[in-house]
């Protein structure tokens, strides 16, 4: 696991969300992953904090947004811009 570098069009990779701070108490609900780019497919894994993202070969956007949300003491959410590499 490392920094977010991006996904090449036509390929997929695994992404892992983690809580900030890392020693936080467990979430009441979530995390929920969401992408709005129709050229990006999001697949769940057995680990609720991990998803596999697949970028279609015909994607032309330079990046897409991955939103991660959940409910801790309050609702928390973060949007990560994932570069699409060519």
């Amino acid at each position, binding site marked *: 696991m*490392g920094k*977010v570098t991006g996904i090449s069009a036509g390929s997929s990779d695994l*992404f892992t*969300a983690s809580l900030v701070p890392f*020693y*936080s108490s467990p979430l009441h609900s979530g995390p929920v992953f969401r992408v709005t780019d129709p050229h990006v497919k999001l697949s769940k894994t057995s680990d609720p904090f991990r998803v596999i993202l697949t970028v279609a070969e015909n994607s032309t956007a330079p990046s897409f947004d991955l939103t991660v949300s959940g409910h801790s003491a309050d609702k*928390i959410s*973060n949007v990560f811009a994932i570069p699409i590499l060519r």
Partner: protein
Amino acid sequence: MPDHGHEEHGERAEVHQLWRIAEGIEKIEKHLACICKALQPPPATDFQLIQGEKMGAITGVQVGSSDFFTALLVPANAAPLQSGPVFSVTDSLVTLTPDSTNTFKVTAAVDASDTNLSFDLKVDGVNSLGAAISHTFTIPILQAPPPAAVDFDLSQGA
């Protein structure tokens, strides 16, 4: 001529009756003493300790916070103490504050820097017979719960 025999016999009978009455009174006195003894509350033999507003079992005090404890006499119907109870702790990071109205109640505050897993709360007193009674209770020091998450981080790759 007076009948002295009859007179003497009557006096003896009266004395005998008086003796029987005296014996009866003595028996009643003994019974009353037993009843009085049975009605007297027993001396306290030990202390019990309960925690908090709901007066429940000891669950512990979270580090950096406080809670109050109430000592109870064992048995519950024990006679009042001659002196006490006196509360004490050996952990210098635990502060005891006696209750202003209830001498059986004390508040224990655990300093935020206390790293011990528990502290001993000792309760001492002198019961109605003049005997010293004492009990040391181990109170867990509970660690602060982890904070709530405030954000997400994201990493890539297996």
